[in-house]
């Protein structure tokens, strides 16, 4: 019998995202996790005692909680091999000229400086465990807007941090929230005072360069009454053969009549476990808008949660997940309606290709006080071949009768007839597929500022380039 030829699948060329810099650091802890590592991190960061205690308590919780018994397999993740803290070889700078050349160049190639010039009101850039650059426009400072790194916030805005830090996501929420509480570092702190409208977005970008490291940035945003903010989060890492871990935490407090839009384009490398927690507490007549693009990582478990706490609170979620070869992306929105006349709209799209697995796992809970509330959930999946998988697991938990909840799910394959139709107009097969996928995610592109929509299309093209055969 003739031997079958082996198929070699080449790694996708991810261009700028794969830039690897030599690992230079000012300090790093030994790999693994114990009390000494946690104390070491706290000491390096020169933290107040309450924070050190908080970390140690979180570690205790981490050791007591089991891994989740549902969702993707994460047994290959070995925390003993993860370096939880690696401080880059620089202090945080307010000018790019002072940032070390290699780090500056990486962010430049990722387009951060250009975006800062043209379309952002402030930028934070994190490299491994700490923020290396932070800047915000003068007029926002004058209006009392605070945008800085969390390490600085713990010292300079201690009372506020103490009041809000891990009150929305508590360490005993799940194992990786506890891990985060123990070893967190980096991230951004934003405070928008009452009535202040920040019309131009702020962006924090998280870059993990070191192999075998973890990134545990903490983002804490408080949008005070009647204020408005658009915050953009970007993340990426070059690919290594060892596992990296991202267990960040995002806590959003949207006060009465305030509006917060939180947009993410996540493009971790495919050796990354992305076990991130994001949650918003939304007060009376306030609005949270999530725009969430998940493209990278080996495994993702990400379920942005909105707690609609005040009467008239609203949540809108628009998400796109693209799972390619070797990726298992488990994502979805969770909304907890606690007050009456609260509204949520969830629109999720997923694409899977070359054996990738994309799962929508969502929850809508209508509490017993959430009378006259409404929720609409729509999930659409597009599979680009026969070997990829897509699943929808929506949970509806309804505790009162006076609500209106709708759910719609559609799973489909890319149609040969549509490809032929486009090809008959001179468009190549590859471009036809890309066009169909771009059209599929268009509702999300529309929600993003132009540069980010372009970046998302670019990421889709990178993923589609990797198609073999």
């Amino acid at each position, binding site marked *: 019998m003739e031997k079958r030829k082996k198929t070699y699948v080449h790694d996708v060329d991810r261009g700028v995202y794969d830039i690897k810099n030599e690992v230079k650091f000012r300090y790093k802890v030994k790999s693994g996790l114990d009390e000494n590592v946690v104390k070491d991190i706290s000491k390096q960061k020169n933290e107040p005692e309450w924070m050190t205690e908080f970390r140690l308590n979180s570690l205790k919780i981490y050791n007591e909680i089991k891994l989740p018994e549902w969702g993707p397999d994460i047994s290959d993740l070995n925390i003993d091999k993860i370096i939880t803290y690696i401080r880059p070889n620089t202090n945080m700078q307010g000018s790019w000229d002072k940032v070390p050349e290699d780090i500056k160049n990486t962010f430049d190639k990722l387009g951060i400086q250009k975006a800062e010039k043209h379309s952002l009101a402030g930028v934070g850039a994190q490299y491994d465990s700490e923020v290396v650059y932070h800047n915000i426009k003068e007029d926002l400072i004058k209006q009392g807007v605070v945008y800085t790194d969390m390490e600085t916030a713990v010292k300079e805005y201690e009372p506020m941090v103490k009041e809000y830090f891990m009150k929305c996501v508590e360490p005993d929420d799940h194992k990786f929230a506890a891990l985060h509480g123990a070893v967190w570092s980096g991230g951004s702190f934003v405070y928008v005072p009452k009535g202040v409208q920040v019309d131009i977005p702020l962006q924090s970008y998280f870059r993990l360069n070191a192999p075998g490291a973890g990134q545990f940035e903490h983002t804490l945003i408080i949008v005070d009454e009647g204020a408005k903010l658009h915050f953009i989060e970007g993340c990426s890492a070059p690919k290594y053969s060892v596992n990296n871990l991202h267990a960040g935490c995002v806590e959003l407090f949207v006060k009465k009549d305030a509006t917060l839009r939180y947009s993410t384009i996540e493009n971790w490398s495919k050796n990354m476990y992305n076990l991130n927690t994001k949650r918003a507490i939304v007060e009376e007549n306030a609005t949270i808008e999530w725009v969430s693009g998940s493209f990278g990582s080996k495994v993702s478990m990400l379920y942005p949660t909105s707690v609609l706490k005040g009467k008239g609170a609203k949540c809108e979620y628009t998400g796109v997940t693209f799972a390619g070869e070797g990726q298992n992306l488990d994502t979805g929105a969770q909304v907890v309606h606690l007050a009456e006349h609260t509204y949520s709209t969830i629109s999720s799209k997923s694409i899977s290709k070359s054996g990738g697995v994309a799962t929508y796992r969502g929850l809508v809970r209508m509490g017993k006080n959430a009378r006259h509330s409404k929720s609409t959930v729509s999930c659409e999946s597009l599979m680009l071949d026969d070997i990829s998988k897509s699943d929808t697991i929506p949970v509806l938990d309804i505790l009162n009768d006076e609500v209106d909840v709708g759910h719609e799910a559609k799973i489909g394959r890319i149609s040969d007839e549509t490809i032929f139709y486009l090809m*008959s*107009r001179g*468009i190549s097969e590859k471009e036809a597929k890309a*066009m169909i996928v771009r059209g599929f995610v268009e509702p999300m592109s529309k929600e993003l500022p132009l540069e980010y929509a372009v970046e998302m299309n670019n990421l889709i093209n990178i993923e589609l380039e990797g198609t073999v055969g």
Partner: protein
Amino acid sequence: MKGDFKVNTLLEINNLHTKVEDMQILKGLNLKINEGEVHVIMGPNGAGKSTLANTLMAHPKYTITEGNIIFEGEEINNLKADERAKRGIFLSFQYPEEVPGITVENFLRTSKSLTSANPISILNFRRLLKEKMALLKMDESYAKRYLNVGFSGGEKKKNEVLQMAILEPKLAILDETDSGLDVDAIKTVSEGVGLLSDSKRSIIIITHHNKILQYLKPDYVHILIDGKIVKTGTSELVHEVEKNGYEAYKNLN
């Protein structure tokens, strides 16, 4: 000696056999089309009319098992649909596909830039689009709508003719473009097609009724039965079919 009056052959189909999922549909079809000619292909359901259209456009489900297709003197059997489109072949679909998220304008601009030798500026493209839409009595808002999404049957067919008008192919194949249209729409579409025919452009009209033929005057009419062309004639043949039905031609096979 090559003279100015020499007629150029655009398309030559020789002994074409086509299979679809193991079913032999075309069984030795011959056809020759010169530049500037309008041909009509008629035939009963299942004769192979749409198979011919799809084979000419290289639909991947249709396999040529014998014979060849020569376009501008070159065999194109192995060219894919996009490559054939670039050479100037266009198919107006019987059932155009819906493509959510892609606007008619963006789609056509991409397609135009891929199929024409000379690049066209955005401004000139918009002008061209506006002009052709007016010609087809299409509201300008169609340009911003997603390709065929939510279009009625008639709107989809008009949109096919619009694409043909923008892309200006050398050979246009209209697969049942008149089916599912009301009288007014047939008139608009036919006039649109009529405006496009000139001494260089060739058109194949596939139809099983004659409404469209009230507006378009063919040079030749072919009757296709059981995978072969059994009779070729002029417009007269249309009336003959009207009178006798296809039954009379079946024994010619």
